[in-house]
């Protein structure tokens, strides 16, 4: 029954055909899945260190019970990337080279008596990264306070509450992954539609379809349905890889990410149709699609935060559709934001969808 329907219903049969065509196109699969996967893998494997992780070097001059407890406590926090097996000289060198945010030096006799010298640690910090350094100092001070406070009551001494500082280690890949998902959806929607449609048009396939009683809506539905399905697949595959292989912590709801992918997919598919409606040949469609995609790739905060941009550029970049999509996906993935809290980004995407859809309809040509 269902099989029969897929065989004799023009819309379903065209959808099945367009899925088949897409999944047999190795080049499309490469650009849509393989390239973003490589991108995520490269940034996942090469640890670009640290985006907001605090690197702490420890030199234990005291080497007594108290110092070892303190080091154990610091380690137990899991907040720092700790190095404690180098000499003091090597650690100072590493700090100067920018490989450390902080160097903690535990003075001899630490914790052995009541004199100020015995209750003191030295912290040398990297001025160039004030946030990380300040956060590190706060945490260490907090640990010391605990020790001080606990000295009357030994049983409390080893217990450390969760750090009051936001200790989530946001690595570059955590930031990058949602951006790459957004970018892949853009590339797929824009290029896959623009190219395949212009190709079908210039080679006369659409003319051949026009010679049959098929309704244009059936054909367009098939194209759009195929691309939206692929947007969802992209999201699932890329998020899946990041979570499984690179330990990216997904805070938000995957279903919300899929909904955002559908909305973003719709915007870029409409853009693809607009480009292919306007361009007669692949030679025209390619540069036009690139001229739209490339600036967005660099301005929309896919690879680095838009905060880094000069203010006037940022004012423009904030309104790009890829910015809305990347921001919304990132807020959901990294901060666990709800769909509702992303209403501004959703509104931005919706406005873009209406605008691009209108342009696509105006520019659309069968021949």
């Amino acid at each position: 029954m269902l099989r029969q329907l897929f065989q004799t219903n023009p819309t379903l049969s065209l959808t099945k055909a367009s899925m088949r065509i897409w999944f047999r196109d190795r080049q499309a699969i490469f650009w849509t899945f393989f390239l973003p996967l490589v991108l995520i893998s490269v940034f996942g494997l090469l640890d670009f260190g640290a985006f907001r992780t605090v690197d702490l070097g420890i030199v234990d001059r005291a080497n007594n019970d108290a110092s070892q407890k303190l080091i154990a406590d610091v380690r137990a926090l899991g907040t720092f990337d700790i190095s404690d097996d180098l000499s003091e000289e090597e650690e100072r060198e590493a700090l100067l080279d920018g490989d450390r945010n902080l160097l903690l030096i535990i003075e001899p006799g630490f914790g052995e008596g009541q004199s100020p010298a015995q209750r003191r640690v030295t912290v040398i910090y990297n001025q160039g990264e004030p946030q990380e350094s300040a956060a590190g100092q706060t945490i260490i001070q907090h640990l010391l306070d605990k020790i001080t406070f606990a000295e009357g009551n030994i049983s409390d001494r080893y217990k450390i509450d969760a750090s009051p500082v936001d200790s989530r280690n946001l690595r570059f890949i955590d930031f990058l992954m949602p951006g790459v998902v957004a970018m892949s959806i853009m590339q797929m929607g824009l290029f896959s539609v623009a190219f395949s449609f212009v190709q079908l048009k210039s080679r006369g396939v659409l003319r051949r379809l026009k010679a049959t009683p098929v309704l244009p809506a059936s054909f367009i539905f098939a194209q759009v349905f195929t691309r939206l399905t692929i947007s969802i697949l992209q999201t699932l595959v890329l998020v899946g890889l990041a979570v499984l292989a690179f330990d990216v912590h997904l805070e938000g709801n995957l279903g919300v990410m899929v909904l955002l992918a559908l909305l973003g997919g719709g915007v870029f598919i409409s853009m693809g149709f607009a480009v292919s409606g306007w361009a007669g040949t692949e030679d025209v469609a390619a540069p036009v699609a690139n001229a739209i995609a490339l600036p967005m790739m660099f301005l929309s905060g896919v690879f680095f935060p838009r905060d880094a941009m000069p203010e006037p550029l940022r004012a423009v970049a904030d309104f790009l559709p890829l910015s809305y999509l990347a921001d919304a996906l990132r807020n959901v993935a990294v901060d666990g934001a709800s769909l509702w809290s992303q209403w501004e980004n959703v509104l931005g995407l919706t406005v873009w969808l209406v605008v691009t859809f209108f342009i696509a309809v105006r520019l659309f040509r069968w021949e």
Partner: protein
Amino acid sequence: MIHHAEIIQVNDLRKSYGDLKAVDGVSFSVSAGEVFGILGPNGAGKTTTVEILEGMRAQDSGSAIVNGIDVQKDPRAVKKVIGIQLQSSAFFDRLSLTEILDVMASLYHRKIDALELLREVELDDRAGALFKELSGGQKQRFSVASTLVNDPILLFLDEPTTGLDPQARRHMWALVQRFKSEGRTVLLTTHYMEEAEELCDRVAIMDHGKIVAMDRPAALVDSLLSKGFKKERTEKLANLEDVFLDITGRELRDE
């Protein structure tokens, strides 16, 4: 289905592109079961005329009735009962011949035996191939097969043998004759005169957007002879094409 004695009725059809009058007052009719040829040099208006009849293009004025349906008013209804072979056909990439035919059939809400259809045009051994892998003659035959998915009562063939070698051309002729024997009406355009003589019951000769002569091929030849026309060299009983086919055989060459 109602079979009208006159399956195509064209009355004073006109179509201009800017200053160019591509179709300039064309009238003719075609009976059901007839093979009707429109002949003419390139740019005579053949293709434009045919495209208006197919519902692919709208006329400026005049009427075109196909199978009792006004083409301009309901092109989809016309497209449902006709088969259209375009001058240069293209199909989806990355689908096999049978897959393409299945999709084409679905556009008419039909399910067909694609392999059987391919067998009719001697392409069953290429069923799994892609369209772009076919030779010129095979492409043309596949294109004809694709017009048969809805079992049309009327077939439009636009220059079906242009660019084909003599073997492939004869094979296409045999196909057209079979369509006629199956009771289908065929309207074809060509600029090969021997093709028209071989296949067509009647022909219309077009030039500059007008029909300048219309009759049975033999009648047109007779009327020319009656004006005292004589070829400078008397026709031999065979020509170079007969020699070519005698030497190379009539089997299809598709490698």
